[in-house]
């Protein structure tokens, strides 16, 4: 029974995940806490947080059939392409992210009176104080993990954090 139930949530095998731009920046940063914080925010924009096989340029077994069918439609007589060639082709078709398009738009060069995406950003809060909630149980948290910067409320929650989640977003 339990087996069957957990099957609902079973993952397919793990494969390389496409790493988002901010994630790259985070990983390049030597500071674990910054890394963890950035990666955590980045994760909030994911469409498929837990599924690792989604982007078209993935080596995704399940979508192979479709991709192949597509290839065949595109070019009838070419032989089956190598994975690498396929990946390259897919990468070319892959849409650019909004942040890439934004960079290309070069909005910084607009005169200062022209409203734009960049100028509409609300900006930092006037009061920088931050309430802290325990990431384990949600309750008010008075302690910070020295390794990853995440907050916890008690010894009990600290232990759970250390055992399960510490540096999850870093490694």
């Amino acid at each position: 029974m339990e087996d069957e139930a957990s099957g609902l949530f079973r993952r397919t095998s793990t494969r390389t995940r496409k790493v988002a731009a901010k994630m790259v920046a985070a990983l390049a940063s030597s500071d674990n806490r910054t890394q963890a914080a950035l990666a955590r925010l980045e994760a909030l924009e994911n469409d498929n947080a837990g599924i690792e096989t989604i982007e078209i340029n993935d080596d995704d077994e399940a979508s192979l059939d479709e991709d192949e069918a597509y290839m065949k439609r595109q070019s009838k007589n070419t032989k089956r392409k190598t994975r690498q060639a396929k990946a390259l082709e897919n990468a070319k078709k892959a849409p650019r992210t909004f942040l890439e398009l934004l960079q290309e738009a070069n909005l910084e060069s607009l005169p200062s009176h022209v409203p734009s995406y960049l100028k509409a950003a609300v900006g930092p809060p006037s009061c920088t104080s931050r309430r802290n909630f325990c990431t384990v149980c949600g309750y008010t948290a008075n302690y910070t993990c020295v390794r990853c910067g995440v907050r916890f409320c008690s010894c009990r929650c600290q232990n759970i954090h250390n055992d399960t989640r510490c540096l999850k977003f870093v490694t």
Partner: protein
Amino acid sequence: MSNVVVLDNGGGLCKAGIGGDRDPSAVVPNCLGRPSSSKKWLVADQLQACEDLTSVSLRRPFDRGYLINPDLEKEIWDRIFRSLLRVDPTASSLLLVEPLFNLPSIQRSTDELVFEDFGFRSLYVADSPSLVHLYEASHRPDGLISRAQCSLVVDCGFSFTHAAPVLQNFTINYAVKRLDLGGKALTNYLKELVSYRSINVMDETFLIDDVKEKLCFVSLNVPRDLQIARRPGKDNLFRCTYVLPDGVEHMKGYVKDLDEAQRYLTLPDEAWFPSQGMKDGCAEVPEKPEDRKRIDLTKNEFNLTNERFLVPEMIFRPADLGMNQAGLAECIVRAVNSCHPHLHPVLYESIILTGGSTLFPRFAQRLEKELRPLVPDDYHVQITTQEDPILGVWRGGSLLASSPDFEAMCVTKSEYEELGSARCRRRFFH
């Protein structure tokens, strides 16, 4: 007379229908999805019709609120226009709702989609705040919004939240403020909390959307509610259980005892504290992690307590999550302050809430509570929520599309072919 197709093309939902109608005939996810049980990608309404939505992989044409993948959007629009609306684009005009501050490159690819791929006869591009204003003003002709011809539209949608002052049916672009948080981030945050604290739901976007919509609410007093949320037993007004689909008896997840889960809404404030002389937060037995785990694992269910209000809390205090952005109340104040001082009192008195993420219970009350201390004492703060915050923008579009001078405001296909995207676009915004 030809049809006007009205399309509110949101990052989360596409709302599509015929101009002049009261409601859109299609409200469908703006994405393709592939359930773990299927090899086929399902498009828009096919996803809604799909019985088993566990572990759906998603592909969205939108990223951070903007259309980045026109090829994908084309598949979705094709489904909507041909199978759901059954219209012939070449014999129709299109009123398209686009996000504020759309990038020129995205406008260009959108125009290509509209004129070259679908061959619409003509196009009008509108933004959501002006349509919301139009709808509210015309539905309350004697109200302040209509008399003063201005309002402050707060649109809390899928990808982001905008506070946008509108004057005489035009969005005051230079005063708009954006908070980079919307329903998508809230769902993802809830996924993360549930996955960490109870059971892995990282792949279950549709399921957690449902949990969020049914169980989350906005707290009017966070420290108090945190206390309530860790009481044991019946005194914990917030603890509730969500049951995951088992794929046999239940294809969809559901809230176990929904009335019980919602009793916090009907109780008067005083009743939140039992009368045994217990004062705020002392002498309490904090919830033990074991309590939380005391759920029936064979039934695949999970408990929620403080997650119910800590998730929407993000919109009011993004800094809590480490985001360097002001919360919603400050966002509104900054938008108002960017307008002429004459407008300030009227804007605070005509705040309109729209967008799916404003549907959380007590959203408006909390906003007013946060806003009041930031607004000069002699100004009134008046917040109204749209009758239907998900359809409000579309309804405004439908109204505009049925106005007599609509066709004259459009760019025609031949104008587009002659002038190109950039020059045609200048017509839509002042």
